């Protein structure tokens, strides 16, 4: 065995040389010296302004399009001019407040450019219909009272509980008007109910005195006595604190945010508009009744009134909350706008969306990858396998203009594709002996995954089969963790996370603190899994899974109540209900999981989650990331692309290969990984391919492949996997212990794996002296042994090892330097081993780039 010592001179030299040669070859794109941008056009948003009701107002934006491609907020740069000045008052920052009914125009003039919008004012004496959720809940939202860190926390605050963003107005109304001390696990008040409003003396209401600090308030001052919001609350209490909405047309159907995406220069600001769309078609400006939050205040900050200000280069999300609604927009900050669009010609719709955003965000794309870079990348991504040297030579030499497309198809048709995606979905579906109660059961489950991948079955069919699995076959084992029926409250969130990309777990015990998911929704969905039962067939852990209307039977020591799906707060038996509260149809009552499966696979989230997951596999991060954490506060970087990919996926019958084909054929996927000076900071917009570390199994297989020494996988039962079995081919991986895989992040699969690998000291030490690296290099019968037998020259060895490990030829500089070093070595074999060690411990090897 040859131990690589850190101080070994040749190895050290080679390692440094490779690092220098391989990773410092990035190109630097020259920047044009740009003239100051000129204003090209002007527009007013909204284009048609409609005001109605008592004291209506509207935030108006003036936006200018400039020669550098950016649209800048010019609101306030010059006053708005009204055709009929008596109709409205104009604030300095573009806020119009109606004074008289009628029609007129609003005009903006900036640098010889003008824009005009229409203004209609009507029904000024008609008060708008009252809505507790939006009128009172809106204030509580704007003031942060129902934030998750305040009264919308899990337990509320100070005994006073509000729903997040007024999502549950009836509950909010109860705790305000009737009062009481909130309890998480019970509907009842923990103490005597004492209203938080005082109808006889409205000014003495706790609801007013606490936030104005007339009484001590842990949340500090949230209202100013006499402010507009204070007056609204006081008026509401004085009018008897009604809840009922007399006009259902006033219901807010949706809330929109303008702009949904904006690029700012280094000094840029942008006022946003928040608009409620009512059921009767009217709109209402909520800009000044919304709560704003920047996801990254290093990039942009935002004021209470919704003005966003650039700080440093980057991209982030603006989260806007109004009563019952959360919306978001993406903001980018560029340091210096560029003038040319350097993106390669688009190949498909993916490129249209990605390059379009790159253009809007003023980020230049890197050029297309070289053939060698593309070859290695796509082989690893589609098959988890390095291309053999012969194939590398062949591909690089080929002049076929369609060779990349042909390669993608060949890889998708290869058995290595089946190996790799069985491994990936096996991991997602948690195929492990420890997770399903036995190695043989894990094997049948694995076999099911394998068959689906090998036959390229529709992902929708796969999901349907798994979710509604019964009997004794592979997918049914998923519901028998540790050999017993999975609990409804455990298994449902996993299914939703895997197939719908949402994390509902928090809502099990309480309404989700950050999202719109309620406890009722959680238990309604969980109840679909409440009939899971099993027969014990042999007495040796073999079970047949089925849905029994009688439900799972209680284990000894459990009460019947604990195994039924009982709402923990409401204490009643929960019937299966979809997210919108709709109950299961009568014909589906006997097969609740089948109904659930149908609902899941028909839900728009399903396709979005799938394509996002596949995108994440290929790019190292999802359009929504983490890939199974869709939420309003974690919006996609490219929402339109996500929709288009999902639609494409649906249209193609949820064909996994087609999703992969679509993405890998895009120029976006095929861009070089070498960043330019202008896109080096970009990690979200795919301006260049961002290298990602190889998964533990793929890395181990790659080392075995390059060294020509297969790994031996021994198990605890005194056996071993057949010689030549790769790590990604292990059918029941957890029965094969492996220090290497453990060290590089193999998950245990007792829960959905999160595989964001991070380097560790152990890995570094293992690279230096670990047997995976050292023994394989020097093992007889390996690649080096063969080259020695063939009496290969230094040049041939260098080339072979480069092709095998890095899928490229060495550069002339690399070749010259390495040949020189090897020639000066007295021990040829040792020198070659050092070269191989240097290659397989290099970052270029350990990453897919």
């Amino acid at each position: 065995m040859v131990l690589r010592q850190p101080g070994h001179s040749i190895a050290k030299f080679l390692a440094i040389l490779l690092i220098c040669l391989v990773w410092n070859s990035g190109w630097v794109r020259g920047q044009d010296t740009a003239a100051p941008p000129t204003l090209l056009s002007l527009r007013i948003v909204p284009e048609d302004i409609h005001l109605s009701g008592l004291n209506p107002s509207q935030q108006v934006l003036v936006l200018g399009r400039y020669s550098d491609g950016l649209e800048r907020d010019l609101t306030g740069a010059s006053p708005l001019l009204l055709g009929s000045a008596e109709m409205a008052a104009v604030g300095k920052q573009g806020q119009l407040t109606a004074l008289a009914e009628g029609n007129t125009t609003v005009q903006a003039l900036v640098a010889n450019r003008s824009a005009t919008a229409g203004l209609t004012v009507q029904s000024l004496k008609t008060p708008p219909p009252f809505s507790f959720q939006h009128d009172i809940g809106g204030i509580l939202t704007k003031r942060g009272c129902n934030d998750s860190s305040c009264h919308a926390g899990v337990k509320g605050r100070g005994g006073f509980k509000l729903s997040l963003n007024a999502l549950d107005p009836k509950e909010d109304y109860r705790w305000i008007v009737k009062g009481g001390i909130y309890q998480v696990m019970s509907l009842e008040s923990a103490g005597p109910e004492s209203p938080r409003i005082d109808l006889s003396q409205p000014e003495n209401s706790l609801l007013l005195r606490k936030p104005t600090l007339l009484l001590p308030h842990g949340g500090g001052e949230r209202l100013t006595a006499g402010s507009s919001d204070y007056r609204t609350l006081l008026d509401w209490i004085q009018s008897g604190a009604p809840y009922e909405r007399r006009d259902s047309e006033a219901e807010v159907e949706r809330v929109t945010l303008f702009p949904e995406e904006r690029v700012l220069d280094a000094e840029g600001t942008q006022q946003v508009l928040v608009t409620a769309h009512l059921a009767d078609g009217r709109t209402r400006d909520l800009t000044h009744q919304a709560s704003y939050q920047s996801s990254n205040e290093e990039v942009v900050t935002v004021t209470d009134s919704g003005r966003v200000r650039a700080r440093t280069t980057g991209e982030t999300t603006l989260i806007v909350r109004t009563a019952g609604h959360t919306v978001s927009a993406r903001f980018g900050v560029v340091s210096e706008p560029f003038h040319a669009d350097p993106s390669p010609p688009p190949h498909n719709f993916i490129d249209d969306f990605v390059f379009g955003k790159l253009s809007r965000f003023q980020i230049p794309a890197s050029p297309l990858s070289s053939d060698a870079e593309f070859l290695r990348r796509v082989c690893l991504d589609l098959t988890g396998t390095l291309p053999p040297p012969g194939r590398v030579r062949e591909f690089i030499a080929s002049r076929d203009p369609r060779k990349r497309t042909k390669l993608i198809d060949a890889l998708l048709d290869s058995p290595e594709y089946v190996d790799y995606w069985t491994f990936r979905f096996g991991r997602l579906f948690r195929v492990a002996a420890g997770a399903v109660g036995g190695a043989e059961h894990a094997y049948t489950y694995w076999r099911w995954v394998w068959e689906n991948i090998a036959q390229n079955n529709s992902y929708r069919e796969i999901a349907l089969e798994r979710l509604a699995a019964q009997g004794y076959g592979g997918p049914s084992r998923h519901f028998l963790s540790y050999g017993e029926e999975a609990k409804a409250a455990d298994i449902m969130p996993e299914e939703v996370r895997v197939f719908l990309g949402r994390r509902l777990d928090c809502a099990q015990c309480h309404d989700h603190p950050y999202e719109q998911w309620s406890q009722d929704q959680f238990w309604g969905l969980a109840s679909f899994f409440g009939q899971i039962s099993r027969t014990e067939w042999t007495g040796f852990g073999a079970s047949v899974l089925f849905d029994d209307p009688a439900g799972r039977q209680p284990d000894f020591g459990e009460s019947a109540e604990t195994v039924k799906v009982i709402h923990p707060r409401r204490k009643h038996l929960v019937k299966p209900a979809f997210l919108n509260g709709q109950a299961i149809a009568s014909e589906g009552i006997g097969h609740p999981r089948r109904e659930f499966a149908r609902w899941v696979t028909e839900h728009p989230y399903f396709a979005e989650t799938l394509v996002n997951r596949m995108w994440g596999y290929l790019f190292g991060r999802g359009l929504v990331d983490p890939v199974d954490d869709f939420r309003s506060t974690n919006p996609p970087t490219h929402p339109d692309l996500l929709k288009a990919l999902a639609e494409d996926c649906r249209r193609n019958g949820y064909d996994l290969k087609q999703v992969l084909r679509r993405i890998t054929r895009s120029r976006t996927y095929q861009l070089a990984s070498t960043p330019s000076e202008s896109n080096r900071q970009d990690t979200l917009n795919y301006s260049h391919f961002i290298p990602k570390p190889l998964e533990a199994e793929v890395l181990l297989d790659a080392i075995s492949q390059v060294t020509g020494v297969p790994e031996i996988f021994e198990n605890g039962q005194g056996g071993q996997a057949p010689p030549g079995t790769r790590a990604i081919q292990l059918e029941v991986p957890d029965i094969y212990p492996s220090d290497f895989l453990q060290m590089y992040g193999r998950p245990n699969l007792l829960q959905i794996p999160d595989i964001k690998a991070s380097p560790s000291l152990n890995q570094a030490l293992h690279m230096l002296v670990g047997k995976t690296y050292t023994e394989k290099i020097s093992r007889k019968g390996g690649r080096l042994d063969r080259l020695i037998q063939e009496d290969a020259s230094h040049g041939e060895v260098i080339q072979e090892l480069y092709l095998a490990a890095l899928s490229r030829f060495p550069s002339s500089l690399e070749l010259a330097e390495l040949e020189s070093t090897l020639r000066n070595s007295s021990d040829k074999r040792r020198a070659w081993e050092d070269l191989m060690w240097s290659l397989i411990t290099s970052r270029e090897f350990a990453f897919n780039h």
Partner: protein
Amino acid sequence: MYLRLIAAALCLAAPLSAQSTEAVTEPKLLSHFPLGGQQGTTFDLKVSGAALQGTHAVWFEGGELSASILKLEKLQAASEEKDKEPEDYLGKEVKADHRAVLRVRVPKTASLGLHLFRMVTPRGLSNALGLQVVSDPIISETARPHQTAEDSQYLSVPAVVNGRLSEKGQRDFYAFRVSRGEELLFAVRSDLGPSRTYQAQAGITLYQRSDSWFDPSRVVRLAVSGPALSWEPFQRYERTRSTGRFALFQRISHRFEAPGRYFLSVGTFTGTGDPNHGYQIRIVRGRSSAPRQVLGKLAHPDPGDWLERDSATLRQLGSFQRPLEADRLALLHYRSGRAPFNGKPSAPAESVSSQGNSSGPSSDHASRIETAPEVEPNNSFDRPGTVKIPGLIEGRIQTPGDIDLFRFRAEAGQKLAFEIETPEDSLPHFNPWLKLLDGSGNELVSNIYMEYGGDGDDVNKTVERKTVFTIEQTGSYFLQIRELTSVQGGPRFRYRLLVRPQVPHLGRVEISLGVTPSLSTLIDKTDRINLEAGQAREMVVVCEKEEGFQGNVLLTVDNLPPGVQAWVSTAAGWTETLMRGIQYRPLGVEVVSPRHHRPQRSATTLVFWASPDAPITGAPRFLELKARPVVDGWVGPALPAGRIPFLAVRPAEETQVMTSRR
């Protein structure tokens, strides 16, 4: 000459003896190769085992095969490790220390199936291993390594191959050719020595060429129909009665759409292998000759192996495929003890085959059972099928989710039994779910039984082959039958449902049960009796009393050699543990009353004692255990209850002296 003891056992009050320990010096066979041979051939068989010194004969239980000992050698220390077995059921380590070469003769007329054989030594009989007798020519695995598709050994179909998995991780590859649309059946059987787990069972994988971009010579798995994991009949040295074990791809049926060359590999699921791990593959054409009918099935099953219901604890699995005989009622009446019986030993003509042989009892009960074929649609209460009592419904779950309903009329107080047979497929693939409903559609009972099992706090639901119920009110009733899951159905989901009056009778008689020293696990204690003069050996017998059978059970042992007697012993301290374990209620908590699904069970212990002057028996013999129902002073016929290989041997000291002199 036969000595014979009649041990009158009032089973509920039957005493049990203390647990015995298996003698360390008893001979034990660990492995053999090859696993079988063809009818009308002679072949050499290598056997390894422990304490085989002085082996002087080979005993085939069925009596059809014979063998001579060509060579018996003591293994060197170096090779002992190779044959080292980790543990047997009693926690003792067993090492192979001898190897024998036998010449086996298989007559042309030998029955197809598994023939059990034992070695006869001065220390007694060994455990049994099985030799598979087949009709097809047998090919031996080539000596050339063939662990890749490129190196595969070519087979011409049909073929039976004897091979060996000598190394860890070994997979042997074989190649064969098929024509377009050809369907082949593949089966494999392993030598599972005493301590190998089911995971060491060899499985089959089929391959075809792939034209991989990475490696054009690579072969890829074929997706095959049918479940990967199945439950297979299992005969091991200490378990020769109805039981089974898991198997992964032990049987495969595959239709090849494209002609050409294909490959199969044989290996174990966990990649175990050692020089003694033999296997046997059988490949035949077509769907009709199911290999499972040959591989692994006993050529001479124990006639006392009466199947009445599935029960893992009592190792009676597969009862759903037990045929419902045309004379079922006559058979049950025969076991009831109601018919007068003169107390004389059973003549051959009186014996009853437990598996459908109708030559024993004669009765007109059979003629009264009418068959009621299912007529679809019959899945609603307004269009049910009808059946009379007694009656045999023959139906099929046509499609996934299909529900069949049948109406019958019953009188108050009528005691009924419902028995199900699923002739073509069984648990866990076809799980017939039977419900008895009243005239309004309310469930009265189903064939799902629930009891505490596992580690004591888990509820186990079992699908029962037989359910009994007493009708409370005269009127119309419905039987609803469906597949437990709603995703299975089709031609193989055929069922036969017998609706009949209950017949109190003696059910299964289980022998050889015991518990481990920790009292945690039920084990087989006796698959053979090697008895020294002056010593005793216990055997536990559990009797099942079905459908309210209130009588006693008279146990008799036939074919005892001179100087050997059998006695009833007092109950041992662990009797209660044993019985609770059998009842599956270790905590004494019932989820569902057992009265619809469980017989009354009682245990007794027989002690076999050889008098100090008992002569040794030169040849092994079966001790025949018979059980007679005793009701109201009538003694019923002698029902086969099991057979135990027996040998009276010299005392250990004497044997050692003899062996050393030799």
